Structure formats: structure tokens, C-alpha cells
């Protein structure tokens, strides 16, 4: 069997798997998410929680949680996306399915302020110690302004428009042709 043959066989195999089991991302209502994930873990074979993360869609005033699951038997990944309201954000905990989910949930509590009631140690500080502002990964938090008023910026830092600066300094003779 040549390498090409083997690749073709693999592709056909994975294609048939894909038809059988969803791969990619699925968006699930928050109320049904844990039930759906439990089903994926126990019946469909997605036994590994790769990560749990959040994205801040401040324009739509929602957080999008992504539970990335992996199926070792079929080599497939599946991202379960769950949209939750940004105001007093909270979500059902999944630490009973994967104990290490508690760490992700603790991090999300600290960085985004998303609460997971019942998750072990969810209120303990994770990276930040003694943090007194709003959670720093929320997009309304101005990290530059915070840094400037807190961390004694050294004067003299300036920034340039990259294209203009390169024209001026690096390629002055070629700049006209740009």
C-alpha cells in the first residue's frame, strides 16, 4: 500500500465517521448544555474535555462558553458552544463529569466573573492575588489605562505607524513605489 493509498483510505474513513458523529461546533441552549455534554461523554464517546473557555461578545451582551471535547476512539473534536447572558453571568458546573473542569471554572470566575455554583474552590484566587477591579478579561476593562496608573510606566516610550516608520527608516529609496 502506497502512502497515497493510505491517505485516501484514512480520508474515507474519517469522512464516514464525520457523517455519523457531528464534528466542529454546535451551539446549545444553556439549559440543555450539561445534559447534552453528559450524553456526548457517556454515549457518543467524547470522553476528554480538552478545554473550557469563554469569549466576551460585549456587542451582543453575552459570553460564549466553549466546551472542547475529544473523541479518542474516532479521533474527532467537538466544540459545544453555550451562550449565556453577560449580566450576572453564571452557568451550571460540570466538575462532576470531569474533575479538572473545576480549574477552568475557577479561572473563568476570576478572569470573566462567570459564576459556577458548586464548583470546588471557584471563589479562590487563581492567578490574581488581591484583585480589586472588575475581572480583567472583560472587554470593558481598560488594561492600558490600569497599567499606566498602577505600574510606574517609564517615560520615553513612543509608538510609530509601522508602515510609515519602515518607509522612513528602512526603505527610504523604495518608499515611493509602495
Amino acid at each position, binding site marked *: 500500500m502506497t502512502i497515497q493509498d493510505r491517505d485516501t483510505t484514512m480520508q474515507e474513513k474519517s469522512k464516514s465517521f464525520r457523517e455519523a458523529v457531528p464534528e466542529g461546533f454546535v451551539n446549545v441552549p444553556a439549559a440543555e448544555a450539561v445534559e447534552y455534554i453528559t450524553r456526548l461523554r457517556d454515549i457518543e464517546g467524547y470522553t476528554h474535555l480538552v478545554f473550557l473557555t469563554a469569549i466576551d461578545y460585549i456587542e451582543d451582551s453575552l459570553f460564549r462558553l466553549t466546551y472542547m471535547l475529544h473523541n479518542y476512539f474516532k479521533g474527532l473534536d467537538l466544540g459545544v458552544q453555550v451562550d449565556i447572558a453577560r449580566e450576572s453571568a453564571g452557568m451550571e458546573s460540570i466538575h462532576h463529569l470531569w474533575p479538572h473542569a473545576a480549574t477552568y471554572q475557577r479561572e473563568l470566575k476570576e478572569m470573566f466573573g462567570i459564576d459556577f455554583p458548586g464548583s470546588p474552590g471557584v471563589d479562590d484566587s487563581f492567578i490574581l*492575588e*488581591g484583585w480589586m477591579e472588575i475581572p480583567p478579561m472583560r472587554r470593558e476593562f481598560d488594561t492600558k489605562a490600569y497599567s499606566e496608573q498602577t505600574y510606574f510606566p517609564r517615560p520615553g516610550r513612543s509608538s510609530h505607524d509601522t508602515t510609515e516608520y519602515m518607509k522612513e527608516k528602512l526603505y527610504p529609496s523604495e518608499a515611493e513605489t509602495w
Partner: protein
Amino acid sequence: MDGIHGSETEKQLEMVSDQLRLANAGLSDGDKAYFCDVRPHRVEPYKGIMETFANWARSQSLWILGFGTGCGAIELRPLMTSRFDMYRYGIQARPTPRQSCVFIIGGYASVKTLKRIVRSYEQMQGPKFVLALGSCTINGGMYWDSYNTINRIDHYIPVDVYIAGCMPRPEALLGGFLRLKQMIREGKCEGMNRYVDDFDWYKANQKQIIHDWNMPDYNW
């Protein structure tokens, strides 16, 4: 612990407290008795040739605290290998602050790490020197606008030599060490005494950003 010792310890503390003592306000009343509250004091150099000889000896035996505080610590590993071989300069790594005299700040320092940096630096025995490695220690580098990394390490502990770069290569690091040795021989590395002189300023800066201060004000 508070319940058992609280009032008694408080009385004892009141008896000895004066302007020269540290408040140790971050500790609970019961724990205060276990920590020293004496301020650090200056160590004056010897006179004449004794100091010259001592400085020469100090410069020949630099022991690094093996505490990688940031990504720049990755550049310390090649120093040990045969290609760069820091041992030929009398430099070697030590596992604890008590045994070391050179602290290398390896790049960016988050607030959480800074607390450990301060604690380790104060525990080191004098004479002690600080090498600040990488752009992040100078002005924050690429993390200058981050919510969790400091911009200038010299506002929190005294720095003797800066090594610029992101990352500086091991050659640059060795260059920094040679510069440090030269400065020690010339008697210019008085960072420890500067820390004592400006102790209140350093403490104020540290406490401005380390909000959960639960250690003594000076870690003897």
C-alpha cells in the same frame, strides 16, 4: 491562634514598639510574635585594602538564586552547558535564597511573582546583587500595558545591572556578569544599602500593587 495569644502578644508588642520597629500589619496578632520586626540596617564597607580584597573575593564567587521568575530564565540553562560554561567565571546556581548572592530577574514579573521576588530578595544574605534580564524589567517590554505585569523592577528592588534584549542571548548574559564583577571590584554595587536607605519608598511601591500583603514587612 488569635484567641489564645491575642491580647497577651499585643501587650508585649506595645512594650517594645517604637519608631524603629516595623508594624507588620499584614500578619495576624498571633503570628506577629513569630516574625522579626526590626528594620534592615546599612552594612558599611571595610576600610581600604580590606574592602578591595573582599570585593575581589566576592566578584570571584557569584552564586545565583535558582528562581526563574519569567520566561527569560530559559536563558540561564544554556549558561550551565559546556558551550557557555558559567562555572569558569565562578558562577553557579544555588537552590535557596540563603545560599545565594545574585538574583536574576528573568524577564516579566507578574504581581504574584513580585511578591515572591521581594520575599526572596529580602531573605538573601548580604552582600547581594540583582541582575535584571530582558526588556520587561526595564520598561515592561512587550507586556508594558498588561494588567498583571509590572513595568519597572527598579521601583521594587534595587538593580545593579540591566541586560537589554528580548531575550538577551547567553553571551549577553555573560557580558552582564562580567560587568557586574567589574562593578563589584570597583565597590559600586551598593544595592543592598540603597534598599535600606530608601526602605520606606520601596515598601510603599510594593504595597501599592501587592494588595494581599500577608507577610512581614521585612523578611529577615
